[in-house]
């Protein structure tokens, strides 16, 4: 439960960041927290692959920013995205609750065998990502929104039965590719703005 609160705060930090570099660091913290949330149902290899992918993705955005000042002012979008995510997460959890159908105790600290934390964190990240993506004006916030969404998707995929190694690798690649494309667009957008 404590990790859920942490991921919510870190998402807020990534969402509210004015500078891309700050947003990329906040995203890294979000991704690492998501990895920690999913640690009960993952092998060490999976956790390592996901952590490295998150590091690469955050690093790509950090480098694309080129300096500490470049970014996008979120303004009212921060609160818009937060309110949407706060409303959508419980609605999605109530509609698609697959972790367990029974009422479960979720401890403040420690493992959550029912998978409730994983699912709530996934819905929070996906709905935050959607809200950020839909209200973004530039590549900076679009990249952050897309990365938050794919992090949430990775958590949901973890709950699915079947092979785990291939999805972990595929979705980690996808995360890096999203960051790479986002960084490419950030650089090109900056060229246009500075022309």
């Amino acid at each position, binding site marked *: 439960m404590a990790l859920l609160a942490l991921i919510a705060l870190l998402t807020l930090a990534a969402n509210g960041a004015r500078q891309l570099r700050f947003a990329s660091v906040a995203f890294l913290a979000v991704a690492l927290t998501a990895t920690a949330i999913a640690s009960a149902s993952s092998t060490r290899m999976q956790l390592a692959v996901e952590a490295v992918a998150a590091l690469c993705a955050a690093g790509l955005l950090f480098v694309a920013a080129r300096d500490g000042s470049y970014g996008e002012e979120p303004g009212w979008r921060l609160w818009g995205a937060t309110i949407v995510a706060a409303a959508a997460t419980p609605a999605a959890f109530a*509609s*698609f609750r*697959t*972790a367990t*159908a029974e009422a479960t105790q979720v401890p403040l600290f420690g493992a959550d065998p029912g998978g409730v934390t994983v699912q709530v964190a*996934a819905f929070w990240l*996906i709905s935050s*990502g*959607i809200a950020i*993506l*839909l209200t*973004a004006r*530039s*590549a900076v916030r*679009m990249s952050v*929104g*897309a990365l938050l*969404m*794919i992090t*949430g*998707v990775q958590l*949901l*995929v973890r*709950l*699915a*039965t*079947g*092979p*785990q*190694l*291939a*999805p972990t*690798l*595929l*979705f980690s*690649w*996808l995360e890096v*590719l*999203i960051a790479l*494309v*986002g960084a*490419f*667009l950030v650089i*090109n*957008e900056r*060229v*246009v703005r500075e*022309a």
Partner: protein
Amino acid sequence: MNALVAVALLGTAALVSFPLRKRLRIAGAISCVAILAATLLLAFSPADATAQALELTFRVTPLGRLASLVLLATLLLLVLDVWFGEPAYNFFPTALGVGASTVGLLSLTSPLAIYAVLLLALLLPVGSFVFQVQRNRSVEAALRHFAFVALGGCLGIASLALAATLPKDQPATTFVLLLVVLVVAFALKLAAIPFHTHAALLVGEAPVAALALYFGVLVPATFLAFAQILTVSGLLPQVVQVQRIQDLLFGIGIVSAIGGSLLALGAADLRRLVVYSVIANLGAAVVGLSTLSGPGIVGGIAIAIVTGACATQQLLAAGALERGALPDETASAARAPLAAAAFIGGGAGMIGLPPLVGFPGHFFVELIAYAYSAAAGTALVLAALLLLVAQLRAGMTLFAAPVDTWQIEPRPVAGIIGGLIFAALLLGGILPDAFLRPIATFADEFIRALRPLT
């Protein structure tokens, strides 16, 4: 096994050609050799051969092989056009990456993996959409494409992952919600109306070769992935039980078919005409799929594959006509008659005129749409007529100049490529069995998946 080798070959070639992408001859030659080798590997792959890698199963189905061959051949023609006709930014590694992803998604059997690879494939062309950024809005267009793909892709994968974890005794509304999200996610990626705004911006701003890569290869691959995901995900019995999902698919298809045709009729330039024609045809293909019947599925998939080839032919021709036109002059056959002829040939294939191979697909879908409802059948025929008028109007404008003013273009690459595609469409029309049989095999699988216990 051959599919795995083909994916590895194309992926490796993409990585090798990336640092060499500005050396047209070397990168072009590497791309051609890799695509040809992958095509041969798939052509000689045994039917239904399977292989395992990283816990994933690859299976070359008859439809997977047919679609891979058609899409790889299209990629090869695009590479030749960029090599000998109009150089395009970052094109060769992008085309090879798209080729690897397309073969991968057509041979994978896990729905989540298919979707993830599709998302990879759709993100790759962003690198070739962006060009001359200080003179146009290509960055904005690429950005919007990125947002649509990321949004649609993540929503679709999330809905599939949730569906895979749902216990069997869920209320129908849960499946309705998940399937609605899945359908909307695919509609976003297929640029179906009303989710076509990113495509409309791309048309005006992206280079022609990149547009052809997207609408000629990736959009048909997306449609095929949708059909394949529905088949292997185990969601089809729910689609049958909940009529509303079928109605949603049907509605999106009809709106896209009619809307795309109307937009094509009012298109201000050749590129827009082609892209709106693709949207209209994919709408008809979605209608075919949504009927959940053998002829509808065969027709829908046939339309999607043929539309990709025709879109490539027409977009390359439109690019050659644009380049040949003088400033402040509209595209005309006088400056590039071979490209203009290729454009007309592509238009005939796009509409589904007999004896080209596009005809059976359109015929099946329109016939089954009538069986579904008279209004739907009439709407599809109306859409086809509107498209016919739009293509005819464009053709008449192109050939308005007198014949004695015509000058054969010095490098008729688009014209030659158009001729090759037209010959393939004609050959397919003369021997439709070779084209339709693999699709019919898939339609059988699809229908079996509808009622797994019968």
